[in-house]
């Protein structure tokens, strides 16, 4: 996307227009290109900031807006749908300066901050203009490495077997050229002819033996070649899958937000398979075919250059048609890929969600949706078939025509005595061999194209970099558990802020409750603490060290998280509890399980395998409350310094809830804890309560302090209070029995 790079030079027509406004000692400090003009069309418009004014210029229409810095109070880049606007707040009211598409939002945000700082004299420019490039956003550059070259890089470590298979291929191609030659000798020298009435019967035996030898060698080498190439392909696929999976694990959560699991899986499973087909089979055929074409081409020229030229007549036709065919074919195969991915995405979302589908009696709806997608896929596949049928038969036809020409001209030559019968027969059998590999390439082209498509898809993901990166100087250390959040802004989409100027300091061992309406940014804040995402502004520190300077492994292993909907994996209860620590001792598992109230249900008589009981995919054989408690046991076992509890919203029965609460209390003691609470009764034990609303912290204090002030917290509390009290007395009643 090189067109996104901000320009480093101001065009001369813009400079000329701006110079007219500028005073003698005035200097251009910064400039920036927008892609929307004053009428709202896509055209160039420039923002120029000088030491004394801010100017919007359209060099095409000579449209100018000139605002002296003296009257500017503040500047702001406003977000709208699909575009934004730079607005200057001046002493005479707001001044709309220029619009820009979202491609440049980040740039103009910075520009606004810069103008703001200049207007408020936070920065002074000392009369020297500053090189523009350092300041504006560096848009990501995509390396345009050729996919094939990248695939070859995987072949590099296996060059020995690659070279071996090439040598074998070369030999087999050479061997395959022998029989036709022998046939020529047979016709011209062994059989009686006008010049040699007896013929040469003894030579026949040699020819037969030669033929036998050739075929034996060819079969043996064929096996060897297939084996080496297949092994090579499988090895490369293996390392491709491994590096792809490793790459996936290293990606930040924002990557998973963008790609559906179905599409990732398709890349990992079926794309790598298609690439393997290419590497172990497609490439093999391709190499052999090309070698054959070259070898036979050489042979026919040595036999008879005149006929050889005729034989090559179709080649220019093929070369001319090829590029446009490839372009269209590439587009079609990428569309096929997307449609196939649509189908698998659909399956990935509906099959695991069958219960929802059935609950809402949407079987027919889902079926129709599936059929629609399948029809799309069908049509797309048919389109590529049609394209192939337009191109390849045409090529075949042209080649047949040239064969007919050779029969005609060569035949006349034999009649006139310029050519022997044997030479013509040899030539014609070479020609049929010559078009063989071309046919093979044509036939396999669709598969080759689809594996190149797959390779490009894998490549696309491998080229992406994780948003959350470890700094080279990042380090690991043991946490005390002090958390400082300073001026933090964040948005999943950078321009839709979810968190706004968050400031909070949490002391070691302190229990903080976070409350607020849903969507107020509670969970997001904890995700930033785990560094699943980085804040867009501000910083988060643990024990005074910026998160970005802590090794991710060190950070996340010392923060325990119990999520609203805990994720359990296919495996036993013990496996799931010990997930945080591979080599957990049995007593550690039992101790954690007891503290989390897991022990009682794990040891239940209905579970003969006790802790070794399989929980099913996603923990489906446990109840919601049980899953929650397993997740708590997991956190207790990992013994984190900092704990994040996202209280379950899903309602469990009151007794289970009490069990979960007990478990949580066991977990919380002595750790820096952040509880995202949905039931306010959970918060009585919190040292401080943080109330969030619309991405901001609106209140902080203890329960009684907040109740006194009568803000949002007291409203929320009073609303829940009656319900809670009714429930509490229910439990006490039950327990008393």
């Amino acid at each position: 996307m090189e067109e996104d790079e901000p320009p480093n030079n101001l065009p001369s027509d813009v400079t000329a227009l701006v110079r007219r406004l500028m005073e003698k000692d005035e200097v251009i400090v910064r400039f920036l290109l927008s892609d929307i003009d004053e009428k709202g069309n896509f055209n160039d418009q420039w923002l120029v900031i000088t030491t004394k004014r801010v100017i919007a210029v359209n060099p095409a229409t000579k449209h100018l807006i000139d605002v002296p810095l003296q009257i500017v109070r503040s500047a702001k880049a406003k977000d709208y749908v699909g575009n934004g606007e730079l607005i200057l707040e001046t002493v005479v009211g707001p001044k709309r300066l220029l619009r820009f598409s979202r491609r440049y939002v980040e740039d103009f945000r910075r520009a606004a901050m810069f103008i703001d700082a200049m207007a408020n004299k936070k920065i002074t420019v000392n009369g020297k203009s500053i090189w523009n490039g350092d300041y504006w956003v560096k848009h990501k550059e995509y390396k345009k490495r050729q996919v094939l070259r990248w695939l070859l890089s995987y072949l590099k470590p296996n060059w020995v077997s690659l070279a071996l298979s090439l040598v074998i291929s070369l030999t087999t191609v050479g061997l395959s050229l022998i029989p036709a030659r022998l046939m020529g000798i047979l016709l011209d020298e062994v059989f009686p002819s006008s010049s040699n009435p007896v013929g040469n019967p003894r030579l026949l035996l040699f020819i037969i033996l030669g033929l036998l030898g050739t075929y034996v060698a060819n079969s043996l080498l064929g096996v060897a070649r297939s084996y080496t190439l297949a092994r090579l392909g499988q090895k490369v696929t293996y390392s491709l899958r491994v590096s792809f999976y490793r790459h996936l694990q290293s990606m930040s959560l924002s990557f998973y937000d963008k790609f559906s699991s179905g599409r990732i899986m398709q890349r990992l499973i079926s794309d790598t398979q298609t690439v393997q087909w290419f590497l172990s089979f497609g490439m093999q055929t391709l190499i052999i075919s090309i070698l054959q074409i070259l070898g036979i081409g050489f042979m026919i020229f040595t036999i008879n250059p005149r006929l050889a030229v005729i034989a090559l007549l179709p080649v220019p036709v093929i070369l001319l048609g090829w590029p446009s065919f490839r372009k269209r074919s590439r587009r079609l195969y990428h569309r096929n890929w997307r449609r196939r991915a649509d189908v698998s995405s659909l399956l990935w979302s509906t099959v695991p969600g069958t219960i929802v589908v059935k609950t809402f009696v949407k079987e027919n709806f889902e079926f129709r949706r599936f059929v629609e997608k399948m029809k799309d896929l069908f049509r797309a596949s048919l389109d590529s078939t049609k394209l192939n049928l337009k191109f390849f038969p045409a090529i075949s036809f042209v080649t047949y025509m040239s064969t007919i020409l050779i029969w005609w001209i060569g035949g006349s030559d034999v009649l006139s005595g310029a050519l022997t019968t044997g030479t013509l027969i040899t030539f014609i059998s070479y020609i049929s061999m010559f078009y063989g590999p071309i046919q093979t390439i044509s036939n396999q082209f669709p598969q080759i194209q689809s594996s190149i498509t797959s390779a490009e898809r894998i490549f696309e993901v491998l080229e992406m970099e994780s948003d959350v990166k470890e700094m080279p100087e990042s380090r690991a250390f043991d946490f005390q558990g002090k958390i400082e959040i300073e001026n933090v802004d964040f948005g999943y989409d950078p321009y839709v802020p979810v968190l706004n100027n968050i400031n909070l300091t949490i002391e070691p061992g302190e229990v903080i409750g976070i409350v607020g309406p849903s969507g107020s940014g509670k969970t997001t804040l904890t995700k930033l603490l785990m560094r699943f995402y980085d804040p867009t502004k501000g910083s988060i520190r643990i024990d005074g060290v910026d998160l970005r300077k802590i090794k991710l492994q060190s950070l996340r292993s010392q923060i325990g998280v119990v999520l609203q909907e805990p994720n359990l994996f296919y495996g036993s209860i013990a496996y799931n509890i010990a997930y945080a620590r591979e080599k957990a001792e049995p007593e550690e598992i039992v101790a954690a399980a007891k503290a989390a109230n897991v022990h009682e249900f794990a040891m239940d008589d209905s579970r003969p395998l006790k802790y070794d009981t399989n929980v099913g995919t996603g923990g489906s054989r446990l109840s919601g409350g049980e899953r929650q408690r397993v997740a708590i046991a997991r956190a207790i076992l990992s013994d984190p310094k900092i704990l994040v509890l996202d209280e379950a919203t899903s309602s469990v029965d009151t007794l289970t809830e009490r069990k979960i609460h007990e478990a949580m209390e066991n977990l919380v003691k002595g750790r820096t804890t952040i509880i995202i609470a949905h039931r306010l009764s959970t918060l009585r034990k919190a040292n401080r309560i943080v109330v969030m609303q619309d991405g901001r912290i609106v209140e902080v204090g203890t329960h009684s302090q907040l109740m006194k002030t009568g803000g949002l917290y007291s409203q929320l509390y009073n609303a829940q209070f009656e319900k809670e009290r009714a429930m509490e007395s229910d439990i006490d009643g039950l327990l008393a029995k």
Partner: protein
Amino acid sequence: MTLKTFIEKLNIVRPEEISICLDEEKNVLFLRYKNTLYQEVVPERPFPISYPEFVILKDSKGDDICSIKDIRKLDDKSRASLEKLLDTLYFIPKILKIIRLEATGDRFEWETETERGKRTFTTRGRRSILFLGNKMVITDTDDNLYQVEDIGALDEKSRKIIQSTF
């Protein structure tokens, strides 16, 4: 509270601190621990497959008395008593050899040789077979349990049968 405090609550005993004796008639244990004699003690195995050596002892009321990390380290008499009772409470015979395994769709017919003799049984569904590391637990259609202690240690033929099926 740290994990350590929770582990302390488990009361893990040293092997020499306890002695156990079997009450054959009631199928319970006598336990002497810290100068107290407990009667009608019942052992529990939290990890019958993955860590069978770990046992929790419970009193007649069902409260935990103590835990033994490795019952193989107990004195011979205690160990024999405990294992005899555990064998009744947790009857999961080890499969030594798989003679035949026939799969028809979801249904598996097993013909095996276990440490307790020959046994033929049927399982249904993928869920009836559980792999835990190198171990394998099989639940038959009548909820009987069998285990393969170490797939790698089976004879060649049995291993091949497992590998070609799962």
